[in-house]
């Protein structure tokens, strides 16, 4: 009798780990994977104002790619993504290297560079919208200094609005890139650097030829994280330009929201969400694969 009870206890004991992770895992299975399948299904369906489960094949995608609004949004994503990633990394790396030169109040400066990461894109957008206000903002300030032709009406200019987004996003994220690279710089092997400088290499050369090339993985991480941020960008656009003028600065995430919740085009909205997912996966999967393969050797 006692041994039967004991056996049951042992079995229960073995089940506990699985029981503990079951609720969370099942939730993710349903709310992530189940929902992706659900959205994918909707993206092939007739859904307009309400979900409609009649399949119509690729027609929503055809419609999507014919819409000028979507093409503008996707082109904007490429412009925004490339500019945002490149500028954030250039500024981040520059600041990390400079901060690495025995700066006395490094901690304070780092705190200043990084605080935008603690606030939301809605607040960043609100603040920059005010700064870029054409009649009361920075433009007027600079003109009052005597530079009469200075123009900074980016948020009301069709061709420049997307760069206003880049500016605010870079402001928000370059401190983060700085932090990534600074922590990587701190873990570089000192002996290699000493050897190189004994050989007469200049500081600049040591950074350009030895240190930065050894940081390929950090560059990779930075690119992937920033690309991910760019693809998901939604609130910054809402707060800063609201996609305008017209829809000239709209991004795919805003397109998706607009179609799904405002324009009764659920099918097209779902199709655009699937394209966004595929874009993220095209970037993430090779990265995760190389990361996981690398860490298995450790």
């Amino acid at each position, binding site marked *: 009798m006692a041994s039967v009870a004991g056996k049951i206890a042992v079995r229960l004991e073995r089940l506990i780990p699985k029981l503990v992770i079951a609720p969370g895992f099942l939730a993710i299975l349903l709310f992530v994977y189940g929902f*992706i399948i659900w959205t994918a299904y909707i993206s092939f369906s007739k859904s307009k104002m309400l979900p409609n489960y009649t399949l119509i094949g690729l027609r929503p995608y055809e419609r999507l790619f014919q819409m000028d609004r979507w093409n503008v949004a996707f082109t904007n994503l490429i412009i925004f993504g490339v500019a945002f990633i490149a500028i954030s990394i250039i500024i981040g790396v520059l600041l990390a290297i400079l901060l690495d030169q025995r700066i006395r109040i490094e901690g304070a400066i780092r705190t200043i560079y990084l605080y935008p990461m603690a606030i*939301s894109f809605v607040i960043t957008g609100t603040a920059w919208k005010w700064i870029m206000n054409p009649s009361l903002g920075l433009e007027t300030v600079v003109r009052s200094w005597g530079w009469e032709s200075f123009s900074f009406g980016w948020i009301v200019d069709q061709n420049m609005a997307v760069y206003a987004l880049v500016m605010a996003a870079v402001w928000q994220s370059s401190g983060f890139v700085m932090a990534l690279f600074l922590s990587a710089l701190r873990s570089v092997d000192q002996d290699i*650097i000493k050897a190189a400088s004994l050989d007469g290499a200049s500081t600049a050369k040591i950074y350009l030829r030895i240190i930065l090339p050894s940081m390929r993985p950090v560059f990779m*991480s930075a690119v992937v994280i920033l690309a991910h941020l760019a693809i998901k960008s939604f609130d910054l656009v809402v707060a800063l330009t609201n996609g305008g003028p017209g829809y000239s600065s709209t991004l795919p995430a805003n397109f998706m*929201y607009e179609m799904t919740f405002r324009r009764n085009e659920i099918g097209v909205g779902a199709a655009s969400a699937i394209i966004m997912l595929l874009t993220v996966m095209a970037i993430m999967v090779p990265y995760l694969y190389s990361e996981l393969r690398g860490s298995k050797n450790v």
Partner: protein
Amino acid sequence: MSNLDIVRPENSSFQWVGRLLIWSILLLFCFWFLMPAYVVISTSLKNLEEIRGGSLLALPHELNFTAWQHAWNQACIGVQCTGLQPYFMNSVMMAIPAVLFSTILGALTGYTLTKWRFKGSNIIFALILFGCFVPFQVVILPMAQTLGILRLTNTVYGLILVHSVYGLAFTTLFFRNYYVTIPDELIRAATIDGAGFFTIFFRILLPISPPIIVVAVIWQFTQIWNDFLFGVSFTTGGSQPLMVALNNLVNTTTGVKQYNVDMAAALITAAPTLLVYIVAGRYFVRGLTAGSVKG
């Protein structure tokens, strides 16, 4: 790395110019990062005539907190002129339980996936991890429907559910990466002594977890407080979280545009996460870099 210039003697005037250049660039960027904060704070303290008549960069004539008060309890958000106060409470009511749930569940999941591995546990981890990278656009439509079915649309409970589930991927990653560094021998020894799953967790793992708990809580709080997409997709009117209310307040077009109130509202909205950042910045940065440097 920081003792580079000790190793090699350099021309001292050259070095002096170099230091000057480094400092000017660093300070220039300090100015660039601080300028929006300065503009927002100073605008929030000005009155409307000062804003229209004066320069964006000018200091306010006097410390005038009327705009703050107005943003807190009088400003119109849509047609409701209640100020941010009720929405602030919405966000608090949403963030606290969601942070608790996702952190506790993440700790247990991370613990199980590192110390109680079973067949398939690696696949489970990979599947959970992928949840960190999914663009939420791909789940919001089904989520909106599910919340409707569960009758949770437009409630704080709906948002708690959403944030708990989608935060779990990150908290699991944090705890998993932390617990993986703790030697398995410790757990094996405890098992031999007869300790079970929960005893080991509460007696051995939890006492050494405070640093990673702080990282996870700060990360989750910042994410949830700053979320806009879920709030705007799943709630309307009086049940919206603060971030959505701020956007509505700024874009309410009735009446005279009160820039000082907008800026005060932005500051009120930013205050909680900024406070956390100032108090516990070190842990905040660790959370930011945790998932990236070492996956």
